[in-house]
Each structure stands twice: as C-alpha cells, then as structure tokens.
C-alpha cells in the first residue's frame, strides 16, 4: 500500500514539475509580421531620434542623395578604370554614402521582380506610383533567392541610413560600396575598383519592413508599343548630365511591349547578326535566349522587333533556367519561323552602359536599352506571351535546345 502511495506521490510531483517546463511559443500570425499602413508613422517616430524621419519618393531620393561623381571616390578609393567619360564628365559607376546618423531616411516601394527563373540574381526592383507614373529603383542585395523572402507584389520600407546609392553600369541602385578585385574576370584590370555592391543580407533584413502582404494587382505595368517607348526614351547623340539624370530614372521601369516578335538577331560586339543553330555552351550566337558567356556573366541580348523596323534588346542571363530555350519560333532548323510568333513581352526596362568609351565617342543610339523578362511560361512569371500568327489558340510553347536532336 505504501508503495502505491509513494508511487502516486511521485507521479503527481512529476506532473506538477511538467507544468513548469518551458512552454512552446505560439504561432506567428500575419498581424505579428506585416506592418499596416496605419501603424507606420508611430513606428517610425519611435524608431528615430526625436521622431524625425522622411520617406522619400524614389526619384526624390535619387535627386537628394545620388551625385554624378559620388562621394565615395578618392585617391585611395578609385572607381573602376573604365567608368569615367571625361568628354561629358559623366560617371557610369558611382557610390554616394547615405548618412548613418541623424533623421531617418526611408524609401518605400512595391517589388516588381522575381528571381525564380534566374534572370534576376541578388537584385530586385521596387516601384512606387506617383501621380499615376512609375518610379523605380534597383536594389542590390546579397541574398540568394532573395525573392523567396521579398516577393513580387510586396511593398517594403527601407531605412537607408548607413547604406549607399550609386550607379552600376549607369543603372541607379540602392547599394553599399564594394571593391571589385575579380582577378579572374575578363579584362580584369579594366574592371577593378570601387562600385555599387550588394547590401549584406542580414543588414538588409534588419533595415527592411514589410508593409502589408504582397498584392501583385497593385503593380503598375506600362503597356506600350516600341514606337511609343522610343518617344519616351530620348535618343542622345550627345550625352549630357541633364539628359542623363532624366534617362537614368527610366531604368527599372516595368513595361509591356505590344505587338513584338523576336527577329532572330543578336548583338555580336556591335554588329547585329542573325542567330545560328548551335550548342549554347559554345556558340555565342545560338538561337536561344542566352547562350553561355563562359561565365563572364554579361547579359545576352536577343532582339525584339515591332511590326515595323523598331527594335529593342531582350536581355537575359546565361544562368536563367530557360537560357537554353529556343527563341519563340526558333528551332533546330534556324530562325526562319521567328517572325510568325508575335505577342507581348513584359519586363524591366534597363540601360546597361559599362564602358565610358561608348559615351565618349558619342556612339549612343538608344538601342542600348533593353527589356528583361522575369520568366517565360513554365519558369516563373510568364512574361513572354506569343502566338503563331496572332492566333491565341496557338501559343508559343517553350522548347529547350537538344544537342541530340540534329
């Protein structure tokens, strides 16, 4: 009997102690995580000394903090070698640091990009619609698959104090100073120097807040023809600082190009050339979206054409999952059928200029602009929608290059 009694005592005390063991945390809800618009001001008041802060619109932010030369350059902080156009006193690469202390400096915007398909890597574009017009800014972040955390349609608020703004290949972006010392790069000595770099992932997560849950329907797309686009992308036979500042703000714009087709051509070191049939691993002009650059990493260009003679580059990465997919209409026989697939191409407008010599020699034609789709059907966002001879019942079905299918 005693044994039973003592056993009961033990079990009872075990249960009492069990109640004192560490309890499990409760599940996080959306309300715990996403900041509501109505909470924003109070939160930022609390976050900043004396409650002082400013949320800049993106263009205002660039005007306020991004200078032509950048404040980071000095004798001991040289920018990359080929970035300065002395003729026009323009810098394709720049870095301006943003004050660490003082009132809070914020920008906000909705993410318009997605990196699943691989055309965007450790970068994203945010969009702010002001007066019905898009304002956009690239953000360079050292987070692999960053869009898993910062998804398309998500509005984010970024505290920029201590970060930097600058231009990489003339493309404005939120960044940090970074020294390029890639001795394994092609023409490495021309690329060495300070330039905008990726914001370290932990720091970016630390300075970013998510406003509400993602809402892709609030992303603004500017649907237009190539001709219309070109009226907006001013051709600049003679670059100057004023034009340049305005045009740089076009970078990152989300556009839907109507009535275009791939014409099967690419830019072969300045010469517009027909794509050919070949293995994308070794043939730079292969009739796919992005043959290998042998890891140099520059974007590969395939031309889009409207129903007239207007063209624009469709820019893709060799690391994209669809890089070795045939262009719409292209196949193992060549590019003859490309002209039959017409439709829309959606993407981020970009102006990638990494050689000051292009500016110095006044060789700009406007055709340096490109559009970068975020994916194709089957790979992420289906930004390329084309149809055989305009028949919506005959959509383009992506097909991969097959070395055995000769």
């Amino acid at each position, binding site marked *: 009997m005693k044994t039973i009694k003592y056993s009961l005592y*033990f079990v009872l005390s075990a249960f009492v102690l069990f109640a004192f063991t*560490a309890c499990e945390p409760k599940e996080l809800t959306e309300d715990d995580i996403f900041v509501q618009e109505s909470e924003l001001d109070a939160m930022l008041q609390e976050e900043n000394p004396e409650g002082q802060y400013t949320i800049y619109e993106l263009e205002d932010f660039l005007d306020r903090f991004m200078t032509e030369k950048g404040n980071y350059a000095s004798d001991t*902080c040289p920018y990359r070698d080929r970035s300065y156009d002395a003729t026009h006193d323009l810098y394709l690469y720049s870095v301006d640091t943003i004050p660490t202390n003082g009132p809070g400096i914020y920008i906000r915007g909705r993410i318009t990009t997605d990196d699943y398909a691989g055309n965007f890597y450790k970068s994203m574009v945010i969009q702010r619609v002001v007066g019905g017009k898009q304002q956009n800014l690239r953000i360079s972040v050292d987070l692999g698959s960053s869009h898993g955390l910062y998804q398309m349609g998500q509005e984010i608020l970024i505290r920029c104090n201590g970060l930097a703004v600058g231009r990489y290949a003339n493309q404005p972006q939120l960044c940090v100073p970074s020294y390029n010392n890639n001795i394994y790069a092609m023409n490495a000595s021309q690329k060495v120097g300070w330039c905008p770099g990726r914001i370290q992932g932990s720091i970016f997560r630390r300075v970013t807040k998510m406003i509400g849950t993602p809402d892709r329907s609030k992303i603004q797309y500017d649907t237009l023809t190539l001709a219309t686009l070109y009226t907006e992308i001013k051709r600049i036979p003679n670059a100057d600082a004023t034009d340049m500042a305005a045009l740089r703000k076009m970078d990152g714009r989300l556009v839907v190009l109507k009535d275009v087709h791939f014409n099967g051509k690419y830019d072969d070191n300045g010469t517009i050339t027909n794509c050919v049939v070949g293995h994308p691993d070794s043939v730079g002009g292969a009739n796919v979206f992005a043959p290998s650059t042998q890891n140099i990493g520059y974007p590969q260009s395939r031309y889009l054409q409207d129903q007239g003679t207007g063209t624009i580059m469709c820019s893709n990465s060799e690391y*994209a999952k669809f890089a070795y997919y045939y262009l719409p209409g292209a196949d193992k026989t060549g590019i003859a059928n490309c002209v039959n697939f017409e439709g829309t191409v959606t993407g981020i407008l970009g102006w990638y200029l990494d050689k000051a010599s292009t500016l110095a020699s006044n060789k700009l034609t406007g055709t340096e602009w490109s559009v970068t789709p975020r994916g194709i059907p089957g790979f992420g966002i289906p930004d390329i929608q084309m149809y055989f001879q305009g028949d919506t019942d005959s959509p383009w079905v992506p097909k991969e290059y097959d070395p055995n299918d000769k």
Partner: protein
Amino acid sequence: MLLGLGLTLSALAQTSLRGQVVDAGTGEPIQGAKVLLGNQNIATTTNAAGEFQLLYLDAMDEEVIIEAEGYVGTIELVLLEDNQAVKMEAVKLQQDIAKQTQDEILLNLTEEEMNDDEGRSQAQASASSATVDVFNSTTSFAWSTARYRNRGYNSTAETYYIEGLPFNSAERGQFNYSAMGGLNDASRYKEVLNPMEATSFSFGGLGQATNYMMGASRFAQGWKVGAAGTNRNYKARINATYASGTLSNGWSFIGQLAYRFSPYVDQKGIIGEGIKYYSLGYFFSAEKQWQNGNRLRLITFGAPTERGQNGAVTQEVYDLTGSIYYNPYWGYQNGKVRNSRIVKAYDPTAIAAFDLKIDEQQKMKFAVGYHYSMYSNSALNYFNAPDPRPDYYRNLPSAMWDGQIANPYNETSAAQMYRPDGSPYGYGLFIGQDMNGTYLGAAQTAADGNLVGPSVDINQYNALVNLWQNRDNKTTQIDWESLYAANYANNANDPNASARYFIERRHNDIQEVSAVVNYQNTKFDHLKMTAGLEGRFSQGIHYKTVEDLLGGNQWIDIDAFADRDIKELATNSGFTQEDIKLIRQNETRDGYELNKKDGDRFGYDYRINMGNLKAWFQNEWTFHEVDLYYALQLNFNSMQRTTNMLNGRAWYLTKIADEKMAADATRYYGANAYAQIKAAEAAGTLQAGTTYAGDAHYFLDPAFKLGLTYKINGRNRLKVNALAQTNAPYARDAYISQRVHDRVVENIYRHDQAKSLADFYAASEKVAAADLTYEFNYPIVRGRVTGFFTQTWNGTELNGYYDDEARTFVNQALSGIDKRYMGVEAAVSVKLGTYFTLTGAASVGDYRYTSDAQSVTSAENGMPMTQDQGTQELVFETQDRVLLKGVKLSTGPQANASLKLGFFHPKMWFADITVSYHDWNYLSVAPSRRMQGLYTGTRTDGTAVNGWFGDKNANAIETTDGQLLRVSMDADGNPVYENAVLDENGVPVLKYPYNLMTMQENLAATNPLNRFIIDASVGKLIYLKNRQSVSINLSVTNLTNNTHFKTGGYQQARLPRAVQQGEKDYQNSLITANAWKYPSKYYYAWGANFFLTVTYKF
C-alpha cells in the same frame, strides 16, 4: 595480521575461503562484487546472496581485495591456514556516491552528443566505466570532458550488451545511450571488460565490452527517491525507485521513474543556450529465482525524450558572440525561444532472460529482446528562398573578405598588405594595391579587432560586426518572423505554391529482435568453456515528415537540388523536359500526392533490413602460473534496402549506368543497383504505395583472439592479448546515397560478384591488434601499464557535401582506408595514509591513417561531375586518391594525463579533485581538401581538375626553385611532384594561406594552461534510523571555467573558388587564396558546470 575479522576455521581437506559482501548502510547483500586474493591472484564474484567461496588455496597471509560497482573498494587481511576452511565476517562496502553521480553525468553527456542523424557529431565519450580497473576508473569520467576515447577507437569499436543481448546499432554500429537516459539504476550494474580480454557474455572485440545487468534481485529492498540540480542542458531531475528485494516466493521486483527537465530555456551566452529538455524514463524488472539456481528475468525500460540541439560553428562566430555556448539553431518567436532542431527519442525495450543451471559445472543463458528505437530530429528546410541559418557564411563579416585576399605569389598586380614590421597580417593577405598598381590605403582596424584590408568597406563591415557582437536577434539567431513572412507572402501570391520554409522531421528508427544462447562449462579441470550464439534481425526505418509548415499552405514534394540544376541536367545530358520532370520527383510512380501537409511523409521512405548471426566459442585455461584463452567467432551479416518510393534520380542514374556499363563493363556504375526500378518498369507496375526490394548483400567474417597471462607472482602479472578479424561494412557506409537509390559502393559490388577470396573480402575491414600489460597489486600501490598496437586495413567511409567544382551536392565513397592505433596507457593508485588515495593515469598514443584512400565521387542528382578533356565525354563519377596517409585520426586527444586525489573518511565524507591534461587532439580533415587531383591537376582516373593548388592562377604549391609547379604522372599513374617541397608523408607543401585549407590543426589550446581541466566533487552519506540514509553529492566539472578547450572540430568540405571567366572548359572554377571562406567548425568543452544530487533511501 588478522585484524579481528572473526574468522571461523574448520578442518577440511583443502584450504578455502568464503564470505559475504554487504552494503554497509542497509546490510543488503551485494551481488557481483569482485573478490581477489592479492597474493595468489585468484578471483571470484559474489552470488545473489552476496556470498563467495574460493577453493584450493595456498596457505599464507593473504590480502582480500573486494570491489563492487558503485561502492568504495576495500582490502581485508586474512590468514589462510593449511587445509582449513576460513569464513570471513560479512564485508561491508560503503556506497561510492561520487561514482554514482559521475556515471549519471557520463550517461547524460554521451546522450547529448548523439547530435546528428547524419553522423556529424563530436567524438563521443565512453559511458562505461569499470571500477575495478585503475586506469578505466580514473579516466572514464575525468577525461570525458575532453572526449577522450579508449585507444583512439571510434564508438563502433565498443560493444554494448544488455543481459547478453547485443545493443550496438546494426546499421551505424553505435550504442544508443538515450535508451537509458536518466535511468541510473537500470544502468548501475554492468560488467566492463578491457579490449580483447576474455568475456563470458560475447566474443567481444577491439574495444571495451560492456554488459548491463538489470535483474531485480541485484537491488536492495526499499525506496530511493532523489533530486538533482545542474546547469547543464537539463536543469533538474527527480527520480524514484522501489525495489522489493527477494520475496519468499523467489520473486523480486524493481521499478524506477526518472524525470529530467528544464523549467526554462537558457538564452544567450549560457550553457544550454536555446535548449529545451524533458525526458521521462521508466524501468521495470521482475526476477524469479528458483531453488535449483535457475532464474528468469523480465525487463522493460524506455525514456521518451525531447531535447533541443546545438551545433558547431566557426571560430569567427565564437569570437564575435564572445561565447562558446553560441547555438545557431534557435531564435525568438513571439518572444519565446524556439529551437529548429528538436530530437525526439524513445526506445521502448523488452527483454526476457533465463539462466539455466544444468548442474554445478554447466550453465546456459537464454535471452530474447525486442526494441523499437524511435529517433528523429527536426531541421529547417527551404526552397527558392534565402538560407535561413544565421551562421551561414554569407551572413558573417568575413564574407566581405571574399575577393579581397591577394594571391600572394602570382597575383603580381595586387600587392599583399604587411604590418609595419614586415610580417603579414594575422588574418590573411589583403590586397593593398589594385591590379593596376593604385595604392588603396592602409589597413583598418575593425570593430572585431581584425586588421582588414583597405578594399573592405569598413562601415558595412563594422555594422555587421556590431550586429553580431550585440547578439542582434534577427541577425544572430533564426529569424522566425522572416520565415513566416515568406510563407504568408507566398500564400497571398499563390495559395497553391510550395512553402518557402518549413520544418521537417527526419526519422531514423530501428526495430530489432534479438536472441542469444550462452553455454558455460567448467567440468574439466583448469578449463572454462563458453560458447554462444547471437541472432538479430534489425530494420532501419528512414523517412521524413512535415513537422510544421510555418504558416505555409503546403509543401510540394519536389527535389530542390534537381530543380535548381535543371539547365545542367538538360544541356549536358540531352534529357527531355519530360525526363527532367521525372528527375525532380522524389516519387515517380502514379498516384503520389505531391502536396504535403503537417505530418505527411515526403522526400524518402526506405528501410534497411539487416540480419546478423554470430557463433562463437571460447576456452579459458587457468593454471598456477599461466592463464590462457582463445576464442573464435564467425559473423554472418546481410543487408537489403527496400523502398516505398522510387526516386526519379534513381531512374536517371539507371539510364546512365546502363549506357556506361554497355560501353565499359569493367566499371561498376551501379548497374545492378536499380533492379527494383527496372523490374517495376518491365512489369508496368509503377504504382505508388508498393514496396520494392533491392539486392541483398551477404557477408561472412571470421574473428580470432587469444590471450595469455603470466603470473610472475601473486602481485605481478604480464598479460598479452591478440585479435584478428574482418568486419563487414555497416549499412550506413554501404550505400552511396541510400535516401535516393539502392547503389552500394564498388567494393560491395566486387564482393557480390566474388570468384576469389580476395574479392569476397573486398568490402570487409581487416583488423589485427595486440596489447601487452604489466599489472601490479600491492596493499599500498596498484596499477598497470599497457602497450597496444592495432592496424586496420581496407576501411570504408562515406561523405556527402556540396562540391563547388561540380557545383552540386556530391556523395564520396572512400575505400582502402588503413589506420594504425598504437600507444601506451598506464595508471597507478597509491594509498596515502588512512584517508587519501592518489591516482595517476596517462595515455599517450599515435592514431593515424597509414594509407591513402581511393575515392569515387558522384553527384546526388545525377549531374555529370566533369568532362573528359580528350574525348569530351561527360564523366558521371570521378575517381581519385585521397592523401590521408599520415593524417591523425580525430578521435579525441592522443596525449592525456591526470592526477586524482581522493578522500574518504569513515564518517562517510567523500571528496576528490582531479587535474587532467590533454594534448594532440586533432581536427577532422575533409577528404575533399586532400584529393590528389588538387595537387596534380589530374585525378587518378585521368580527368582534369579544374582549379588545383598548383594551377596557373593559384601557384600554391611550394617549390624548391620558386617555379610554377606542374606535376606529371609516372607509368603507374602516381604523381611525380617535380621540385615540390614535400612533407613527411610525401604530400606537397602548400604556401600560406593555401596551407590553411588542408593542414590538420592540433586543437589543443595555444596557452598550455588551457589544456588543463580540473574536476572536483564532495559528498556525504548520512545513515539514519531504520536503515534509512541520505546522500548528498556535488560534482563540479571544469572548476576553473576553462572556456578555451576545444574538444573537436572538422574542416568544411567546400573549398573557396572563383569562376574563371572566358574559358570554355566544362567547369572552370579556381581555388582562391581566401582560406577563411569556409573555415573549420569547432566544439568546445563547457566551462564550469555542476551536478548536485540528493538521494533519500528508506
């Protein structure tokens, strides 16, 4: 001198001695106590009544040495007279409460070290400790902090039995300590035998053999309740035991409950950071003893346990956080600690054992047992989202060094930085000038104290350093909020999409049925014959379940690695999109539901069936001057994998294997490994839910051991033992990627196809071992010295890691591994007066690889590894030599010494203090960093290595003439290292800082004082009325709070690489000079920690 022992003498035809050993507090008999006559060197053990008898003795003054597990030993003096039967009065032994506490700490320690289901755990301390052996009793606890391992053997060499039933895992070879977590009574009584010695319960083996004895009759009648407090992973324990003693009907019973728990979870910078813990152990045993000596024991025990884990991190993280207790596995969720890695273990066991006494000279033991070991641990998984680990290398300040470290010898345009005195930086060789010669400025002292180069943006660097130093929750711990945010955002964008993050639970269960028969015969003079039969069927059960979707709607069961490498798979293999769709699938058969919710199985679901049958016999001969034993064993093993899921990558590899074998039948390529898939395809029965069995593999391994004891006189003896055996590979080392497919390593394939004896043993490890011991035993001083030498050949090992050259996760099978263990261990115990005992122990060894290994490396997702430079054919498996010869084994410190001062006062005070010194503790090297191809540019299979230490942009190999090193091969395919500076093993020496990537570090602290660990304990046993007692014991480990003591560590497999632009090779990465990119990870010994126990017996 008879010391008033009250001896009773009677005239008999022979000289004999008998007596009884009892507990001093309770008067209960002690079973299993060892009784040794010091002068005549004759020993026996006490029976259930605590009684012993020794016959045919020589008449003389004799010392009776009595020792029992959990008790303080004693020596009594008796006069043995010719032809008289001497009866001693009851010998009363005092409980050694300090030892009992230490055993509990040890058991807990070893349980906690079972940290990882993938084998990446620090070297385990041995939980067994033998009281009787001076060396073992001194070192087993004192050296456990340093993770000392007997003779340098890994834990698979030690065999564990319970009531004679084998309990080492058939699959992994180790003993599962968590089965007995907290059950200090269940594990109290054990036989521990030194390596290779004669054992009565099994053949034994290379390492120690331990047999736990759980019969209820061993326990004294009464209650025992206890409580303990500690600052280790759990904080408190309560336990209660009731033993009935032997009832009049011959039955005895015992039951124990033990509950260990943490009422709170420690947070930053404290032992047990982020660890929750609770475990409820139970133990019940019933025993029936018949008058004729037969016995039946029925035993069951188990300890459902849930505990958090911690993980090794790099030195940078320890330095930044300022704590050796930093744990990367947890974070705050709604203000509370949440650990992503939670182990759940429960190992319910049932045993029935029957001892049959045939007659006085013949005994048989039968035992059957069943246990189902449930072991699982949780981990974060993610897909198409940033790596959630806070200590991921990109999240650390050192990631900003990448690209800023100069190649010191060939990067002529980027000069290295020096200190003013001309010496290089302590932390690398940062660039000081750019490649165009522009001076970048001076070095900068960063917030973490490092001197960093001028090309590192100091503001960003310091900002990150500050986040780490301040232990920012979002930076230094798992940011649960971000993980939920990703999933909620995902739901908003596409409710049908796969969760970005979730927690999976990896189950590694094993169920076993075992039976043993043991026969002992002492009919013949001088001879004890023992024979045994052990049979065991084990089934390893492996699968994953979704534990928590973290707000996500579902997880879509697609292989992430295959998905990521779609482009490579398609372009390099010519596979169609339909093929690739199949490759991505973890289950290729129709009817498989891809959408997984909480609790669903996914990923893999397979079993390994293992059979084992051992037959052994042993003869022990005892003569006046010489004892001799020899034993032989035959060990039959089988293994077979079955799966409930047919993985798409297995299907893919089947195609490759078929093609390759058709082209070259001399190579293996795993052609027979996918029989299940082929059969299913042929039969058209690719239906989900069906189990498919792979090929079975059978092994037969002999073992032989013998030993000789020469009794120089009663107090001095020499012992020699020797062992030769072969060991079949464990299942965990047999399958190249057992989660995916059925393919075994090539040596098993050779074995399966064997037409010669050499081929039959192609997969087995061969072992030869011997030791020589000198033992002495005097009233004041006793001890032993042992020299040992063990050589193993043809070992196998499997590794898996992310390969930056192939740019995918690879599996690497190593074979032909030879190892040598040699050394000396010694201990001596000296009585200093009445109260003190001084014990010294030392072990100095040399445990190392004595050969290089052969490796076969293949991508888990089936991607080609490289391309043949000549034929341009894709190569799916690379073969190379791993330069392991001379590398030290990372099985704990190889030089150890300690001095222990023990105090025992007859008024039941116990105290001791131990000072231990440990050295020669080596880092575990990554074979991927020691591939021959990395030194030569060419693997042994002839394929080129892209990016090797002597490549034109690295030039990392030291040359005698300062020239660029190129290596040629001789006619046998061996490298000719022209002009290279070679180390003592013939491996080319690498220049700083490249040498940091491959060198094997001695983990011993730089300051010799930090190689010492001091432990102390104090206890008091108070006897109360009515045979009641209270004992209190406080044990403090690492009294001086030495937080600089590394117990283990390992090199990361990845090498720092950069992509060479513009080259058309299949892969074109190069090893960079940033040796700090993937540095080693370390384990530290805890600082000062205590264990306080209070036990009340009534």
